[in-house]
């Protein structure tokens, strides 16, 4: 199967290990991976802050870029940016653009959902030593309904002990919310601290998630609080064969 990587700007610039991990895992599963270097940002920051024309312009770009590829699927190491692509249709009034947006969205999958639901794999042949917990990133969980997929993949990684987060639990928001995290930093961190307290109580080596944005938020607070718990992207764990 031929896969076009939708890298996302965050993974590209801040968390390349996630993008590299995605490429490695996809290749291990027999996919040929291509990457179109014209891609930058999907426009979500603009869309979520109310800058529709700016978001629309970036949406058109990315639709054209992915239309130019005849890959079987577009795969991203981000639930949030995948969900943004699935929202593209509502940015347009023009029926032509709506149809084009829908066609690209239908080909676009978040990494764990692609591996489990499209390729039908649970075991990606990874090994990683550690006690881990999973954080459900909101857009993956609620927009794309991804819940079991990453857990199934992590449970089959040799050496991994997966534990669920104690209350308020894996499904609660980490408080990031894009520009929300800097518009209302005190509220954002108050929400975050409940998450980080739960991670501390879980007694894990690392918290794993499918979005670099949540990981920046959670990881940034963990390290500020002097915690030894690491923040890891799912693709990093799945790529590991150590």
């Amino acid at each position, binding site marked *: 199967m031929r896969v076009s990587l939708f890298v996302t700007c965050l993974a590209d610039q801040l968390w390349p290990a996630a993008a590299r991990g995605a490429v490695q895992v996809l290749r291990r599963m027999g996919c040929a991976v291509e990457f179109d270097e014209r891609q*930058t940002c999907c426009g979500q920051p603009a869309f979520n802050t109310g800058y*529709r024309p700016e978001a629309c312009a970036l949406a058109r770009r990315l639709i054209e870029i992915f239309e130019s590829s005849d890959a079987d699927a577009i795969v991203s190491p981000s639930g949030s940016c995948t969900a943004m692509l699935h929202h593209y249709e509502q940015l347009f009034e023009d029926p032509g653009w709506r149809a084009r947006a829908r066609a690209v969205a239908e080909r676009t999958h978040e990494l764990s959902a692609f591996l489990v639901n499209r390729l039908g794999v649970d075991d990606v042949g990874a090994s990683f030593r550690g006690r881990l917990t999973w954080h459900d990133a909101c857009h993956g969980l609620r927009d794309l309904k991804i819940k079991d997929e990453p857990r199934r993949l992590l449970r089959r990684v040799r050496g991994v002990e997966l534990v669920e987060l104690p209350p308020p639990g894996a499904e609660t928001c980490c408080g990031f919310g894009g520009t929300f*995290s800097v518009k209302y930093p005190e509220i954002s961190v108050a929400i975050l601290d409940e998450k980080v307290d739960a991670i501390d109580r879980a007694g894990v080596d690392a918290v794993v998630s499918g979005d670099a944005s949540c990981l920046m938020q959670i990881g940034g607070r963990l390290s500020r609080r002097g915690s030894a718990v690491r923040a890891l992207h799912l693709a990093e764990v799945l790529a590991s064969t150590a």
Partner: protein
Amino acid sequence: MSFDRDARAALADGQLRGALRHATTLFGERRRAAIAEVPDWEGARDRARAIKDETLLHLDRYLEQFAANAERAGAQVHWARDAAQACDIIAGIAARRGARTVVKSKSMATEEIRLNAALAARGIAPVETDLGEYIVQLAGEEPSHIVVPAIHKTKGQIAALFAEKLGMEPSDDVAKLAAAARQALRRRFAEADLGVSGVNFAVAETGTILILENEGNARLTTSLPRTHVALMGIEKVIPRFADLEVFLRLLPRSGTGQALTAYQSLLTGTKRHPADEGPEEFHIVLLDNGRSRMLASPVTRQTLACIRCGACLNACPVYRQIGGHAYGSVYPGPIGAVLTPQLLGMGESAELPYASSLCGACRDVCPVKIDIPAVLLHLRAQAVARGGSTGTRALLERLAFASYAAVMARPRLFGWLMACARRLHIVPPLGAWTKWRDLRPLAPRSFRDEWRAGLRHEGGR
């Protein structure tokens, strides 16, 4: 109003946050347990939403049908364009009936029109009879939750309040506190000349209103005084009596986690015979106050499907931290953040649509599947397009997004700028982030650089 400032004050209030954490968690758990008993919860949500959508598409027709049937049964129906007109109508009825004391059961619509202040200004004493509302009124505050008005208060604070205002022995025994309130309120019921209630649902085909409650105070409010006035937003109407079934399944479970509230009062018109019990006059005030504006677009229209259960407040990570008062609006939480700017206009409440991390927990728990994040985004786009805000922060934000869009449309410029930032160790001025969180530095090498350096080839590392 400053959402930001009030939210920070709330975050510094340890008692408030303790009370909120306890109560929102409890209601969340009860809701989960209650909906687990319903065989087809999703189907019920879809049916309820379809009924609301159908009603809102033909709202004029259903309202006229409701009004005609209510009048036929003996009620007097009044149409109020806005809050001021609604207050005038109700105060006018009170004056004509010579009312000096008005008992009220729980109603967010009366909060919305600031009825208590309007009555007090005309020398009429409004008395809240719902326990939570009573506590809030005694404290000189406003409700901070649409179903649990005093959710922000601890038992200890209520005990101190009752000791001060009702002269009771300080006690944090809940039964004693409730008994003291009941004793004080029974006297007020006996002397009240007029009862004001809200409405949960209004049935077009019969002219019936339904009121749900747990304390029996709404039943007293609507039956003991000689006159009953019910205030309802125009979105409360539903077409058929049989439609109540699905809403009764959804509302108590979503709001308080109950299979059904302790009381359900169905009221149709006035008493038929002089010897019957109940008020002599029954008035229904239909309130628009900005609602018909929301009908224009399907995105905003769904706001009117809300049945005021409060589940979105309990589920919202923002509400759970700061409570209701920080929103500075009658309706707080996620539904308040979409409802208030639409009722009052953006000017006063342009901050509210931004008071959300867009996590979507509100949409998941909403019994009528309102896509609150979509409405929030719609209102954010309106706020930006309106360009009302001209402060330095707003201008900087505009500039930042214009530059962002320009750079992101040019991949080579983007790559070059990021390479410069990497080489020169440029850190963005994000004090709002770094005061509490470490900022992840740019990776030594971007993915696109790794790709070019060899990862592009099969087997490349």
